[in-house]
């Protein structure tokens, strides 16, 4: 489906909740929605017969400095289109509904985002650190993250690479 057609279709289906919709490079559509709309919107995108965004390809969290964002990349086998859904979160309370029940593949993605950015997913069954040790402090992908000097007596800081 052509990008303009997809944008029109999305505008029709999700009239009330769209905060912004625009074309992205690489034949992609960026759909921005509010935080509390996330679960209903993704449910519509997945369950709608015509849209059919059943493939959850990617999820990431971003620290934009003054706010956090969670970005979902979906793919529709029926349309052959990609869709990027973006949700902005407040800096001091980064929390969003978990889509793990909707897309079971989101389980580890959400754990990873929680692990590295500290964004909490409400309703996730097992929100624990995935990659880092469970007693690690801080969230490394945040822009204000300060590297710890040591971890259990092991020196971590390498001056040459990270000093700037």
């Amino acid at each position: 489906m052509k990008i303009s057609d997809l944008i029109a279709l999305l505008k029709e289906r999700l009239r009330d909740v769209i905060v912004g919709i625009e074309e992205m490079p690489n034949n992609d559509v960026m759909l921005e929605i509010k935080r509390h709309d996330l679960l209903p919107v993704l449910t519509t995108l997945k369950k709608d017969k015509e849209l059919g965004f059943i493939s959850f390809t990617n999820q990431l969290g971003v620290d934009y400095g003054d706010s956090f964002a969670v970005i979902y990349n979906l793919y529709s086998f029926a349309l052959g289109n990609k869709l990027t859904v973006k949700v902005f979160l407040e800096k001091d309370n980064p929390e969003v509904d978990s889509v793990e029940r909707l897309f079971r593949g989101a389980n580890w993605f959400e754990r990873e985002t929680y692990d590295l950015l500290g964004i909490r997913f409400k309703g996730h069954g097992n929100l624990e650190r995935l990659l880092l040790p469970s007693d690690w402090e801080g969230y490394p992908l945040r822009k204000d993250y300060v590297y710890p000097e040591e971890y259990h007596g092991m020196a971590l800081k390498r001056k040459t690479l990270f000093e700037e």
Partner: protein
Amino acid sequence: MTEFLSDEMVLNMGPHHPSTHGVLRFILQTDGEMMRRAIPDVGFLHRGIEKIAELLPYQAFMPYTDRIDYLASICCNFGYALTVERLAQIEVPEKAEYLRVISAELTRIGSHFVGLGALLLDLGAVTPFVHALREREVYNDLMESLCGARLTHNYVRIGGVSYDEPPGFREKTRRFIDHIEYEFLDEFNELASFNTIFINRMKNVGVITAEDAIEHSLVGPNLRGSGVKHDIRKNDPYSIYNRFNFDIPVGHGKFGTMGDCYDRYWVRVEEVMESCRIIRQALELMPETGPVRTKLPRVFKPPKGEIYVRTECPRGEMGFYLISDGGKNPYRLKIRTGSFSAAAMIGEVSQGVMVADLVTIIGSFDVVAPEIDR
């Protein structure tokens, strides 16, 4: 976490268990040989590549992409270069495109050889693994003649590739793929793939339906093994893949149920043949001479923007979500890898199987640990 029955024991498989392909750890709840569940524990190879990307200029990050999936480093290079090029709208010379495709498909062959061989090694057959590595050695030599490295190639650059083909490269490559397609694969299948014991070990084990595979975000050969005909090279073509004529092999229950371990294995074997077809066509079409690299400014700053590009790696689609703030470093780079979802899936499909089957399932997903953790 979960309640234990009185006759259960907890087994710690990994991180240095012989068949966990790198450093992966599984916590098994077993009742003798029968397993109740396996909980994957990843993160032993987490190197923070996504954080490193934020600290380095665009070009300087290229060698790190080699280390995402060290068995298929060119494919990772390719994906990252493509992402930056699409964002900055850089034109890539014609010849560089062909060299990229040829090297990426060669890498797919080399990577699948390790995957297939390691699976057989997990099932106790050592010889097919050694034979597969013997052929991979030829691939290593080819890549060495192309870019000087044998494992972490760092061959693709933003805006092209690092070197032109060396003299005799086409001839050697053609000989290699002829040998693979017409001699080696037949020999390998006779030795391993059609062995009755092997088929009995693989069929009807770890069955994943097409719906489940999509639901769990499986990608690449693991998704196609469940019968979903989806390949980024065809469905969302990048580079010059739309110029070639090739098929997407899918699992169809060759010996057992559709989506079992054997289907995932067989899809990989067929993919090797398809890669050979692509390379043969690319060698025909590749221009004799021409530039292989676009000149980039010394301080390279792509425009502000966000982009998500997916490429088809040997272990499934590799997506790069790049956010640029117009500076010389990426603002945020997220790398989505095939092994990540596959590792999550292992825990799901391995409920109630035998310990020996878990080994089969891990092998059939062809998981590479650094790709999970990045």
